[in-house]
């Protein structure tokens, strides 16, 4: 055996030394990194397809929110700081895809809250989320029922807030006496039609035309033709999908409509103005403000730096701002406060902290957990909601109106129309 050759013992010693050195070198940063904790937030909403306008912009808003929170040091939970990571999954607005995504987010990614648009995908994922006791949120409280104890609607009380727009219109334009409503026939359109029916009835406005259209509709000309044939003072696009509202407005313009337009949303309205005219869109009433509105920087608004958020959003995702761009982020704001209060990121602890005392800081002011009469469970956060009007080509908040006050006066009318369209929680099953 040569003296230069490596003995078995030398080989073991050398290997051990290299191993220890390598473990020390590579292990140090790993040890250092473990001091920084991460909490994952699941985002399960449509990122493609017809409803993507109410999913993808919300995810983008969450990314900005997470970057801001992380830059400020993360979420303080006891002695720890947690960085936030948004994990998204495209549910394509389909129940089966939602279930796949829900399982991935909860079981593989270990998220602590799942933000959803809700609607048609929710029934697909509900049993799994219940089984997991996972804190979920929806923008559509019509998903709520006594069987959804872990589902909250902490931002949007869709479609109930639509009553505020109609109420404002009736108060400011008493000459408008008739309305025509169109909507797609789905979990977004149906409860919204029930709400608009109730809102118009409560305001003394007669509905002269009400039709649902197929989700696969490509040409909206005949739908608008039929609508305008009844010569309504107001046309109402209900909670039609963003692109449908765009095409409906264009048709109404081309077919010579001169009256008032009411809609739940008016996403990307600058493009609609470009296709129609500033004069045609003047006075359109809807429910979702641009976040550069000075009325959002006032006291009582529970969203930090709304104007800066809008500027940052438009810088990073130009031309994509929609009704939901801020909504999921506002839910995260509420959740962050709850997590910090609970001293835990665990879903049930956060849920309990969010609902503690029956009230919570909703984005548009202090609000109450509500909904038993309509949804069978008090899991919807309800308070004020803004009425937004297009004035000189720009959306502006004209007033905040109270949903609970309207409800106290008109709850029977709303429940009647919810029952007529089989939208009460005990009918939806």
């Amino acid at each position, binding site marked *: 055996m040569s003296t230069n050759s490596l003995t078995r013992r030398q080989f073991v010693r050398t290997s051990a030394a290299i191993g220890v050195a390598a473990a020390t070198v590579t292990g140090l940063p790993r040890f250092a990194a473990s001091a920084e904790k991460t909490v994952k937030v699941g985002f399960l909403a449509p990122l*493609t397809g017809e409803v*993507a306008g109410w999913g993808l912009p919300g995810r983008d808003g969450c990314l900005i929110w997470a970057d801001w929170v992380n830059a400020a040091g993360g979420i303080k939970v006891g002695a720890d700081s947690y960085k936030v990571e948004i994990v998204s999954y495209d549910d394509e607005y389909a129940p089966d895809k939602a279930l796949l995504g829900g399982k991935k987010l909860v079981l593989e990614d270990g998220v602590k809250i799942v933000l959803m648009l809700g609607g048609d995908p929710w029934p697909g994922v509900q049993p799994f989320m219940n089984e997991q006791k996972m804190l979920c949120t929806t923008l559509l409280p019509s998903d709520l029922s006594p069987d959804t104890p872990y589902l909250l609607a902490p931002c949007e009380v869709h479609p109930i807030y639509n009553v505020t727009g109609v109420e404002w219109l009736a108060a400011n334009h008493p000459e408008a006496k008739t309305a025509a409503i169109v909507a797609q026939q789905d979990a977004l359109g149906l409860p919204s039609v029930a709400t608009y029916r109730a809102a118009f009835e409560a305001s003394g406005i007669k509905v002269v035309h009400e039709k649902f259209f197929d989700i696969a509709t490509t040409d909206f*000309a005949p739908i608008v033709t039929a609508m305008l044939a009844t010569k309504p003072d107001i046309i109402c696009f209900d909670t039609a999908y963003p692109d449908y509202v765009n095409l409906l407005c264009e048709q109404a313009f081309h*077919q010579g409509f001169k009256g008032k337009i009411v809609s739940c949303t008016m996403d990307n309205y600058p*493009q609609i103005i470009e296709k129609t005219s500033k004069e045609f869109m003047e006075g359109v009433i809807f429910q979702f403000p641009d976040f550069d509105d000075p009325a959002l920087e006032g006291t009582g608004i529970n969203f930090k730096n709304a104007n800066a958020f809008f500027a940052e959003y438009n810088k990073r995702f130009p031309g994509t701002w929609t009704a939901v761009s801020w909504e999921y982020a506002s839910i995260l704001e509420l959740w962050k406060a709850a997590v910090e209060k609970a001293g835990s990121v665990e879903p049930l602890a956060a849920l309990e902290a969010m609902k503690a005392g029956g009230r919570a800081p909703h984005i548009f002011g202090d609000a109450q957990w509500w909904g038993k009469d309509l949804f069978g469970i008090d899991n919807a956060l309800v308070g004020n909601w803004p009425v937004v009007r297009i004035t000189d080509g720009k959306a502006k908040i004209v007033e905040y109106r109270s949903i609970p006050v309207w409800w106290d006066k008109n709850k029977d009318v709303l429940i009647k129309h919810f029952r007529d369209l089989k939208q009460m929680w005990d009918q939806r099953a």
Partner: protein
Amino acid sequence: MTSLIIQTVVNAFVSSSFAALMAVGLVMIFGVMRVINFAHGELYMVGAYTVWYLYGENELPFFVAVIAAIALVGVVGLLMERTLFRPMRGNPLGGLILSVGVLFILQVLAVIIGGRGLMKHIPPALEGQWDVFGIEGVSVPFQRLVVIGVAVFLLALLWLFLKRTKLGWALRATAQDPEAALLQGISINKASLLAMGLGAALAGAAGGIMAPLVRVDPAMGHAAIITAFIVIIVGGIGSLEGAVVVAVLYTFFHTFVTTFLDGTLASIFGLVLLLVVLTIKPTGLFGKGEKH
């Protein structure tokens, strides 16, 4: 009521024009190649995206963008025939599956190129509208008139090509009886290539001219292909005349039911109509039975 009926007729003519362009392209491809091209709706989508990119984003003249859409989609069609459908000739199921694959690839490409989210913004190329014969409450935007004009022009051109040129005769002969056509010295390869190129180009034209009027997004082909399938099945698969006539009949039916009854009912009645026709005349209104 009169103005409502006239407005509905005008609306129906626009829908007919679009449906006819789509259906005739699909019929040509099936007639000559015996391939059910499920990606036809996505070819329509590529046409619309081309107009969005060239006209909406880069401000080229609208009609230049439409011509580019026709050319680009025609080339995509040629590539599909040469690389996918030709090796699968005689295997209709294989061709169908490949077309479904193309459907997904084109949709994903659209997402990669155009992103996700709201529909693409394509302003109308022509402002204003025609108040039809001065009748109050009846108007049609010039942009929608373009759809009728381009569709009539292209279909007339196609008719002349098929009836008056040797290549057109060759196509018709191949569609009627491929073996007999082959015996007459007609190249099935060339006929297939031509049919696919022309059929795809018509879908591209439909997408291009409809782009400022419809929701342009990666999934826009779904609704278009459903209408086209109903039209060609009711018209008789392989019948160009059937495709045009039924495109007009079906869209008039659909538009009138939507206007006077309900949009959802219109779609249901459309499918019922399809079932009734297939029950009474399985070959479709203008179709002929297969020779065995």
